């Protein structure tokens, strides 16, 4: 698994609604409904702290081999919504 590091966008507003989670991005003015998996991923990312993909996979209980593609998919959809950013 790659060592790419990810960080949650600053200033996001988040609310848990039952099993789901909604996030508001004050800069972009967008609102997103997150699936439980994406919500769990966001929960793993504290503000101001970058995490690498291996650590995120562990947080989500994904296995090294099978989990990679799934994790990538979630990360890419969160990234395109500006909810997370890649950090060098």
């Amino acid at each position: 698994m790659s060592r790419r590091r990810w960080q949650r966008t600053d200033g996001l507003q988040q609310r848990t609604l039952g099993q789901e989670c909604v996030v508001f991005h004050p800069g972009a003015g967008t609102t997103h409904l997150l699936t439980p998996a994406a919500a769990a991923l966001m929960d793993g990312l504290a503000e101001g702290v970058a995490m690498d993909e291996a650590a995120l996979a562990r947080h989500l209980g994904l296995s090294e081999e099978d989990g990679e593609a799934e994790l990538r998919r979630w990360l890419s959809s969160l990234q395109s919504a500006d909810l997370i950013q890649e950090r060098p």
Partner: protein
Amino acid sequence: MRIADLGQTRLQCSLAGRGLYLRTGPFTSRIQSPIASVARSIESLYRDFEVADSQGFYDFHCELRAPRSHRRFYRPQVLFLSDRRSVFKPLAYHQAYPMLEWGLNWCIANQVPHRLVLHAAALERDGKALILPAPPGSGKSTLCAALAHHGWRLLTDESVLVDLATSEVSGPARPVSLKNDSIRVIRDACPSAVLSTPIADTLKGAVAHMRPPTDAVRRGHETARPGWIVFPRYQPGAPTRLKPRTAGSGFMQLIANAFNYAALGARGFHSAGRLVEQSACFDFSYSRLDEAIEQFDRLADGR
């Protein structure tokens, strides 16, 4: 003082002069119009509403009059002006009163920055609000008018006001707009309802307005706690069906029906969030009004 106490002559004088200061829920509207049909409709449909001090504050300034053009002599039209600016395309003169209602809705949607404003109907029972957000054509107003005569207190049929801090729900309790077939449906289902004479050929077909029940008007200042958010859909022949919806998708659907959610930013988000957290969300499809009323009775009683 209420509209009924004002009397026809004084009502017409204030409308044609400095304006009628009409109190609807939390708002005061200053309405000016020399048009007789506007005065007649206000006299009948707003009978129980309070008249505010004409030396006092008003939230919205509305004017209905003919455009100042030669056209007024051969095909008269009417304009709606808010703060002295025309905000809609003109309509045929006989549609002046429905235009006032649409204009007042426009004012709430565009000039209320301190509350989250939802495009929805709302009613109250035992202190709890039932919110019915829906696009036109979904049978929202029909349902709202029927429930308002069957044990629910009318809050609004068009613009729900949500407090930004507490998410308490209120509405202006103004007349309910009914279209085409729903005019007959409500006449049949609610014999005590007072409806205006339908106006044909508007952009929506025939339109009539229902006078809000007296109790709803008198209690117009009372807010309600969040209770239920139900997305109604009228489908000819469909069975009555109330189906739970997840809070997350209810939230997304609710904000899609808000007028000023985007403008309010994080405050709007949290206000809508609190509202959804404290409410139960459902989808509701129906074709029979009597069954729908029973269904909402059961919902209120927790059955």
